[in-house]
């Protein structure tokens, strides 16, 4: 390869195909990352629209804009799209694909063609979900949990949606396989496990969950299809089946899945905080291992979603206890991030603002999660809007803000253009305030007894619903500002050619902006940890000083 091609950015690089085909058939991890970004944004926009419409419907009791059936399909589509098409693939597939190989000093992932296949599966799965809306029968109206027996009885296109989720599962598995192998096999010389950036650690833990847990939901969803098409009684109570067993199988995957969502976001935050505090991360090993601990413990707590379903007392006891233990590694992370700010030199650039908001919102989400882990309390609040608030705080306040942080942190690197920082800040405040106005009232409502998945509600909850709906408008304003700002920056933002925009010490800041096709001219030799900040005057080593 001539030295000329090595200096061409991956955006301009010409492979065998040109134009659009040069993208959709490209096996370059960076292009695949961008394609994921585009596809995910499209699906995400669909999900947001459903969320927005739901809030409109709930503005007044009774019918406001749509019928009950339509509302039921709204929250199902909203849930399915957000979970399977946005938060699960979001960070690993977009930023993981783009930056994982760079962060460990590799030229690509271990199986580039598998990577492309995984993108195609993702798009096909997403298209199936959207297709189910148009086909006769209408989109599924089961909720994203597809609980049997309702999912077998309803006349809507459940098969489509379920099959789409099955395909999306395989897309996710392929990403997982790719990442585990990449991290094991392709680290640059000298990059020991404890010299890896923390984002890599979190992707590694995530990848294992993807590989091990996803097949279980694959088969479970397939059984819904089998049950509907062939009438095989596996869960149908009329034929001796046990609907609660379905719930077990569903959550064996879907609980670990929530850690697929949050771990990469935690990784992003662990990258951003030391960079903008301009100092080394506090407790590297604790953060790294807590990712693994979350992955392990996270696989053991699934039945906390079923505390009201009638499990045996012993089951309740065990799952509640384990649920509390899974909170500990998250707590460790939060404390270490906070400690990283201590004696730093903090510049509050937009990515940092989002990362700090992440800590705050995720803490609220996590702490309310802990409340739900307490048996007697959960009996009261399960299946109420308290839960809805909890998971929006963790998924959207957590992962969503993690994605925002990542966008503001890495987009200039990916495209060589800088966004308008003022606009970024104003988007941030709209998002942050709107978010809390939208979801906080749901905690109160939920505690007062407002069940979830309710098309209509009793008049005493009206005020909370209305505050919440107003919140959604503020939030969406912020969203529009943010995406417009980022989009415009790609068109006519200030050009960035400096390698290291933020003063980071990980490898992506040592290569060209935007990265060249091959990432590295020469595979680097790694000699020190990822967050050394050698330039700082005093270098206090481990265990010397108590904070």
């Amino acid at each position, binding site marked *: 390869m001539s030295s000329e091609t090595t200096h061409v950015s991956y955006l301009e690089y010409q492979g065998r195909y040109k134009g659009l085909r040069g993208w959709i058939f490209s096996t370059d991890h960076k292009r695949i990352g961008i394609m994921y970004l585009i596809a995910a944004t499209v699906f995400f926009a669909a999900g947001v629209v459903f969320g927005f419409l739901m809030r409109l419907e709930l503005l007044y009791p009774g019918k406001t804009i749509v019928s009950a059936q339509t509302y039921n399909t709204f929250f199902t589509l909203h849930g399915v799209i957000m979970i399977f098409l946005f938060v699960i693939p979001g960070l690993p597939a977009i930023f993981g694909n783009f930056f994982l190989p760079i962060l460990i000093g590799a030229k690509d992932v271990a199986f580039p063609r598998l990577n492309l296949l995984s993108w195609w599966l993702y798009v096909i799965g997403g298209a199936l979900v959207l297709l189910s809306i148009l086909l006769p029968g209408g989109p599924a109206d089961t909720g994203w949990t597809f609980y049997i027996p309702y999912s077998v009885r309803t006349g809507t296109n459940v098969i489509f949606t379920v099959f789409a989720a099955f395909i999306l599962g395989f897309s996710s598995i392929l990403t997982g396989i790719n990442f585990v192998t990449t991290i094991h096999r392709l680290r640059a010389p000298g990059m020991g496990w404890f010299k890896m950036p923390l984002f890599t650690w979190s992707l590694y833990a995530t990848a294992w969950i993807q590989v091990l847990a996803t097949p279980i939901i694959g088969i479970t969803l397939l059984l819904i299809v089998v049950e509907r098409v062939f009438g095989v009684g596996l869960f149908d109570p009329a034929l001796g089946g046990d609907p609660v067993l379905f719930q077990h199988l569903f959550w064996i995957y879907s609980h670990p899945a929530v850690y697929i969502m949050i771990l990469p976001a935690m990784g992003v935050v662990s990258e951003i905080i030391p960079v903008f505090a301009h100092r080394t991360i506090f407790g590297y090993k604790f953060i790294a291992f807590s990712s693994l601990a979350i992955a392990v413990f996270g*696989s053991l707590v699934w039945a906390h979603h079923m505390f009201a379903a009638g*499990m045996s007392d012993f089951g309740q006891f065990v799952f509640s206890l384990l649920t509390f233990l899974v909170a500990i590694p998250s707590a460790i992370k939060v404390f270490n991030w906070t400690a990283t700010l201590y004696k730093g030199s903090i510049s509050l650039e937009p990515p940092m603002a989002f990362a700090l908001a992440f800590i705050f919102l995720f803490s609220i989400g996590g702490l309310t999660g802990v409340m739900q882990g307490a048996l007697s309390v959960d009996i009261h609040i399960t299946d109420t809007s308290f839960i809805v608030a909890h998971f929006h705080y963790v998924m959207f306040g957590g992962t969503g803000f993690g994605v925002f942080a990542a966008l503001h942190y890495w987009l200039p690197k990916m495209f060589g253009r800088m966004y308008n920082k003022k606009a970024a800040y104003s988007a941030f405040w709209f998002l942050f305030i709107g978010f809390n106005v939208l979801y906080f009232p749901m905690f109160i409502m939920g505690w007062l007894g407002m069940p979830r998945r309710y098309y209509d509600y009793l008049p005493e909850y009206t005020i909370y619903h209305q505050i919440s709906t107003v919140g959604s408008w503020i939030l969406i304003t912020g969203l529009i500002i943010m995406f417009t700002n980022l989009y415009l920056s790609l068109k006519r933002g200030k050009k960035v050619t400096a390698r290291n925009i933020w003063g980071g010490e990980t490898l992506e800041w040592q290569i060209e902006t935007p990265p060249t096709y091959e990432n590295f001219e020469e595979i680097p030799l790694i000699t020190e940890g990822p967050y050394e900040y050698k330039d700082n005057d005093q270098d206090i080593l481990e265990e010397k000083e108590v904070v």
Partner: protein
Amino acid sequence: MESSELIHRPQYGKYILVWIALLMLTVITVTVAGINFGVLTLATALTVASVKSYLVLTVFMHLKTEQTAFRIFVGVALFFIIISFVLLFADYSFM
């Protein structure tokens, strides 16, 4: 690849021995199932199946000669299945 050369020495003889062992185990498990052992029937059947899988895993699938990481991987996967199983029965066996 150097290591993989070393790992995969052709070994027809060993394979055939394993194959014979597998067939014998099959015969054993079928015969034992004929005799009624009560609760033990299931236990023996599963033990024999595990031994058979162990042979296939280590010899046919070369797990014995692969890098340590592979064995850890298998351990992780098995751990996940077993712990899920145990927790599932934490509910069902106390109904």
